[in-house]
């Protein structure tokens, strides 16, 4: 597991750093799928240190989002820089994925969504 992760209550926070391209997306997919295999239900991808992403990385996000939707879990993103947000908007991910401006808003939003579902 190369992906730095930590727990915030019931939410697993994974920090994405640097560039996600066609090579690094392979490792990212393995690490995220491993988290889901370990029954992670609430996953927050912190993008504050992410400065590049291509479609190989977007594909991983889509797979993870679909898998968590099927298992009634939740996936959210926070702290996207302007370029990464532009990519999300261009591809329509801002409509199908949950994006928060920062980590505290994400944790609050994900916790209240879990409380409503319970």
């Amino acid at each position: 597991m190369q992906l730095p992760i930590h727990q915030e209550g019931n939410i697993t926070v994974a920090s994405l750093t640097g560039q996600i391209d066609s090579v690094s997306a392979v490792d990212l997919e393995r690490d995220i799928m491993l988290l889901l295999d370990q029954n992670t239900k609430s996953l927050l991808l912190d993008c504050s240190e992410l400065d590049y992403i291509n479609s190989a990385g977007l594909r991983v996000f889509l797979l993870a989002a679909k898998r968590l939707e099927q298992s009634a879990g939740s996936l959210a993103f926070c702290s996207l820089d302007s370029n990464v947000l532009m990519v999300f908007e261009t591809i329509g991910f801002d409509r199908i994925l949950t994006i928060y401006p920062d980590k505290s808003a994400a944790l609050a939003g994900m916790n209240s969504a879990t409380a409503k579902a319970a």
Partner: protein
Amino acid sequence: MRTGSLSTKLDVNLYETERLNQMVRQFGKWHQMPDDAVFKISLSIDELVTNIVMHGGRKEPRAHEIVLRLTISNREVHAEIEDDGRAFNPLDAPTPDISASLFERNAGGMGIHLARTLMDAIHYSRIGQRNILTLTKRVA
């Protein structure tokens, strides 16, 4: 922006695309291209080159080399991506339905859609035994 050009040959593998990304970004910064334009151009080139590696490198006749020529002049960026694989026009790929729900979305065609949306123009031509993609982007 500073005027200049770059021309380089790549092997057909994904590790080369990773190195190419770094080079395109450095080239853009050196030529005083605005950050958002650097991002859009390097992403578009990345998507199209990755596509050649994934598709053009797999079926006979395979691509053995990719040539990138990048020019910045008069507030316009011009990129030419040439490969020697079988005839393959990535612009024929179906456009992803970006209004579909999460359940209906699939990952196909996203790279080409990004490149098409972020560039002002992309053209494909087959000249002899080579595929040539030309990208243009005006930079304000």
